[in-house]
């Protein structure tokens, strides 16, 4: 580590110790080895990543369905256990051969470990953790691109070649290698554990977060309240971080976060009762599958009150994961950086992982509860009989799949980004006014109105008519936005940012 000569007294930089040093070395090595290859073939790598992840998803689905058929045929009638296994490799091979599966020779070795619950749980947990890691990394890069475009600049353009797509990975390496600073006057223990108090709950929310009918790690009967609780507990980490920093800006940020969160949880949870009443369950998978009948059966279009509830929920969820116009805890124009002013390096990045994962979770709740979950606008009764691989794939594309769920979630994340870079931040008294005196009464009206509607009008002709009208209005609004976006895209070269765009590399 080079020491630069400066006129003031300089203390030597703190080196990482123990396992952290190994992690830093590993990150540096991986990045320096991968960067030349990645920057040379960015398009190839991106395309093959998409193709291979699609293939991995398909193979995973195939393996599990084979395993279920074998288990259903009950070859030797013993129960599965966590530690042991009931089928031998030979038995699986014989079953595959009797059903004339071509790749049976390799497949039987792949299938054998999957019958152990523990192995399947480990695979599932690893997948959840990877999803949890990839969403923030991708969303942070995307946020910078969207912010750039809204402000007529390009955003990240250099790292990785194509539109700076590896920017977040490079930032990750930088953050891991940075010095781990703890202010001398801070409450050291609380300062160190606070990022984990924010990070772990938002990871736990993914445990029972369904991405599709069968794509859920634990299908719990109280999944919805569990997810809300986890999003709420994340705040404890933020408050503790602000307090432990022993910095006036941080404490202001933490106090704002506390009063904002506690008040916005009330309208948010109240409007969430509306789709729960429609579905009659708290199980996320059942709520999602109740909306499989196409665009007009989605909960948001059930009646005017559910439509109001959907919009109220989305605004409250912005406050709940501290996005603009409610990003008072870290309002950078007044409070430096709010609760994470004193944080640096890896601990700082943990807060960002938590925040972006929470954005995905609240968008996912909006999609699951109001907008048809993992189903496409087409009713699933039109689905093909799954006789060939092609038809299975077609069903996945046209009717329901986890890809559709993630796609819908990213639409709502995009709207969050759009709002953040368009609207100004509001004052704390305006935040609380809008919660207590505007959104909470609206939420109560939506709840009571929906209850009355369900008792009096559900199933009548008038109800169906209202449902179609609301569905058509929402479709028209979506189409209008898309048209404006298409116009802007086509005429982008004639708009303000043209000169700036032309001068930048990669344009």
């Amino acid at each position, binding site marked *: 580590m080079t020491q630069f000569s400066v006129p003031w007294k300089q203390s030597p930089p703190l080196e990482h110790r123990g396992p952290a040093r190994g992690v830093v070395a590993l990150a540096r090595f991986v990045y320096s080895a991968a960067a030349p290859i990645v920057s040379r073939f960015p398009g190839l790598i991106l395309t093959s990543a998409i193709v291979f992840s699609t293939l991995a998803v398909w193979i995973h689905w195939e393996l599990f369905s084979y395993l279920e058929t074998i288990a259903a045929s009950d070859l030797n009638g013993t129960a599965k256990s966590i530690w042991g296994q009931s089928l031998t490799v030979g038995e699986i091979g014989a079953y595959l051969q009797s059903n004339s599966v071509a790749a049976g020779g390799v497949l039987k070795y792949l299938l054998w470990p999957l019958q152990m619950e523990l192995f399947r749980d480990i695979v599932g947990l690893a997948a959840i953790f990877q999803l949890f890691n990839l969403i923030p990394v991708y969303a942070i890069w995307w946020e910078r691109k969207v912010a750039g475009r809204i402000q007529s600049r390009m955003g990240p353009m250099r790292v990785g070649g194509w539109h700076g797509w590896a920017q977040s990975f490079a930032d990750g390496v930088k953050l891991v290698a940075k010095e781990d600073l703890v202010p001398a006057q801070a*409450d050291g223990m609380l300062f160190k554990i606070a990022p984990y*108090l924010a990070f772990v709950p938002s990871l736990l929310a993914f445990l029972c977060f369904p991405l599709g009918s069968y794509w859920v790690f634990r299908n*719990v*009967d109280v999944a919805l*309240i569990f997810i*809300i609780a986890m999003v709420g507990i994340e705040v404890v980490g933020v408050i503790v971080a602000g*307090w432990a920093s022993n910095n006036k800006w941080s404490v202001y940020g933490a*106090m704002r976060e506390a009063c904002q969160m506690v008040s916005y949880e009330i309208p948010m949870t109240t409007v969430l009762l509306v789709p729960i009443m429609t579905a009659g369950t708290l199980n996320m998978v059942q709520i999602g599958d109740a909306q499989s009948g196409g665009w007009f059966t989605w909960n948001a279009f059930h009646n005017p009150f559910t439509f109001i509830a959907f919009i109220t929920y989305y605004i409250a969820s912005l406050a709940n994961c501290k996005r603009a116009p409610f990003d008072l805890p870290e309002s950078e124009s007044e409070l430096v950086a709010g609760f994470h002013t004193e944080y640096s390096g890896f601990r700082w990045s943990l807060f960002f992982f938590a925040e972006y994962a929470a954005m995905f979770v609240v968008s996912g709740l909006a999609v699951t509860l109001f907008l048809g979950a993992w189903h496409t606008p087409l009713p699933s009764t039109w689905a093909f009989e799954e006789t060939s691989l092609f038809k299975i794939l077609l069903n996945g594309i046209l009717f329901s799949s986890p890809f559709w769920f993630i796609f819908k979630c990213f639409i709502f994340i995009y709207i969050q980004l759009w709002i953040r870079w368009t609207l100004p931040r509001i004052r704390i008294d305006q935040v609380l006014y809008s919660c207590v005196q505007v959104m909470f009464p609206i939420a109560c009206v939506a709840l009571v109105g929906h209850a009355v509607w369900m008792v009096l009008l559900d199933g009548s002709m008038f109800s169906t008519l209202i449902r179609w009208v609301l569905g058509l209005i929402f479709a028209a609004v979506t189409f209008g936005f898309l048209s404006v976006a298409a116009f802007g895209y086509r005429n982008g070269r004639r708009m303000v940012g043209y000169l700036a765009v032309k001068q930048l590399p990669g344009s």
Partner: protein
Amino acid sequence: MTLRLNQLMVFATPIIIATLVVIAPVQAADTELPQSEQGLTLSDQGIQKSADGGMLEALMFYICAAVVLGSGLAICLSKNIVRMAVYLFGTLASVALMYFLLLANFIGVIQLIVYAGGTLILLIFGVMLTSKSPWAKFDVKRNEMIAAGVICALFAGMLLMVVVNAEWPLETDAVVVGSSMTQFGSALLTDYLVPFEAMSVLLLVVMIGAAYMARQE
């Protein structure tokens, strides 16, 4: 007390686990769990039949119990109020985990959302608004200590009597899984309607009182 709290917790946790392992013999639940009415299988609900004799459950129970006791002890011994609140978070979260282990999912998540997610945040918020510096010490006077000690001793005696005198059935007839929420809801609105409504009236009175006191003339 000169021993630092972190060290104390590090020392105390394995001792507590070891004591529990020695004192309390494992009672593996071998009861056959019924299928739920809503068509979910048990493994769908994150519940695995204890084919390994309940070892995993027992292990999880001891870890949770150790965290509950360790952070409870830490609350008593700490002098920094915000740290106490964070230790309290440990206690509340592990109690919720123990509810999950007992298949009481609903009570577990309500514990998380009400206590860990709501009350605790209000507690820390109150401390932040009232205390003068992050180093505010929580000094206990001698007579306060004596009063607290007497109350704690009485309460501990009561708990001990309950533990000694109560019957602890080792096997239950039926464990209700899956439809617990439905049963809970209908019980609240039929058999226990009067206590439920009385409780909500009480909460309403508290809310009106708070609003009245906060009102500025």
